[in-house]
């Protein structure tokens, strides 16, 4: 499979994403934000970092980069897009995902391992995650608190668009396990069509034992399986 990993000025997790995808046996290349075309691509990764220095708001400027037109088109055609950390922020700013990411409630930058509970396997990003498997993945963010209004949250719940919640090691979703104050401990969501997703934690940093966890592999394996299976979506 061919992955396009976007690169904005001050993205810094792009190389990690490419490395992880190649490690897992697939093709990945960087696509510069000024490129108007993605080229031959099976899936898009919007990586972490501090694009445009997080100026104005995280992801607020990156969403207007030329490459994002191509990403929007790709997503509109049902293509799989995964935003990680700053990538999640870019996707919410671009309106490809609902809600917004705001400053962590304790105003601290959190660089630590967290645990994720997967709420549904009915998505290209979670299809291969074993039931009950708690994922241990690192986070590194200062603005990871997921916010959406009541109506949006209700809709996300009703349509099973919440993919991951922060939980403790035992899989319990508690306030103590919430590193940033995200509403309903939301760590990651998908769009209504289920082809675009975003999450604050870094699965690309959890693909090698030497780094401390291999649980990120579950998410990438889910994507690989979905791509191999062909179109997974209902026509829009």
């Amino acid at each position, binding site marked *: 499979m061919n992955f396009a990993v976007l690169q904005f000025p001050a993205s810094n997790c792009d190389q990690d994403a490419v490395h992880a995808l190649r490690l897992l046996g697939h093709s990945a290349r960087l696509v510069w934000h000024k490129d108007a075309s993605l080229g031959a691509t099976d899936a898009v990764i919007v990586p972490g970092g501090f694009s445009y220095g997080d100026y104005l708001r995280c992801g*607020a*400027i990156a969403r207007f980069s030329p490459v994002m037109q191509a990403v929007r088109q790709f997503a509109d055609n049902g293509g799989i897009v995964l935003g990680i950390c700053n990538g999640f922020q870019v996707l919410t*700013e671009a309106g490809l995902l609902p*809600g*917004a990411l*705001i*400053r*962590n*409630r304790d105003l601290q930058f959190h660089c630590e391992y967290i645990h994720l509970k997967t709420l549904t396997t009915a998505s290209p990003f979670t299809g291969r995650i074993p039931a009950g498997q708690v994922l241990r993945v690192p986070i590194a963010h200062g603005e990871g608190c997921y916010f959406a*209004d009541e109506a949006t949250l209700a809709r996300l719940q009703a349509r099973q668009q919440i993919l991951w919640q922060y939980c403790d090691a035992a899989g319990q979703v508690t306030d103590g396990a919430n590193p940033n104050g995200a509403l309903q401990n939301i760590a990651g969501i998908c769009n209504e069509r289920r082809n675009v997703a975003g999450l604050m934690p870094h699965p690309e940093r959890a693909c090698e034992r030497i780094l401390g966890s291999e649980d990120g592999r579950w998410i990438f394996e889910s994507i690989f399986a979905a791509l191999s299976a062909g179109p997974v979506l209902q026509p829009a």
Partner: protein
Amino acid sequence: MKAKIVITPKKAVLDPQGKTVQNALAHMGYTGVTDVHIGKYIEIELAPGTDPAAAHKALNEAAHKLLSNPVIEDYKLELE
């Protein structure tokens, strides 16, 4: 011509910075403060001779699309 845009967090959004400043004011001995909100102020200078009506329209659009995030922020625009 100058546009002044004040951006504030929506009421429903958690504002830990505002809370922190509120606590700091209390610690400094200031009383009677019931709430504090931290926002953003943007100044945009426009070329002389710009049509105010057109500028107002364009700036509202810019404020909605880029300068503020309508999911979490409100804005007020003033042209002078």
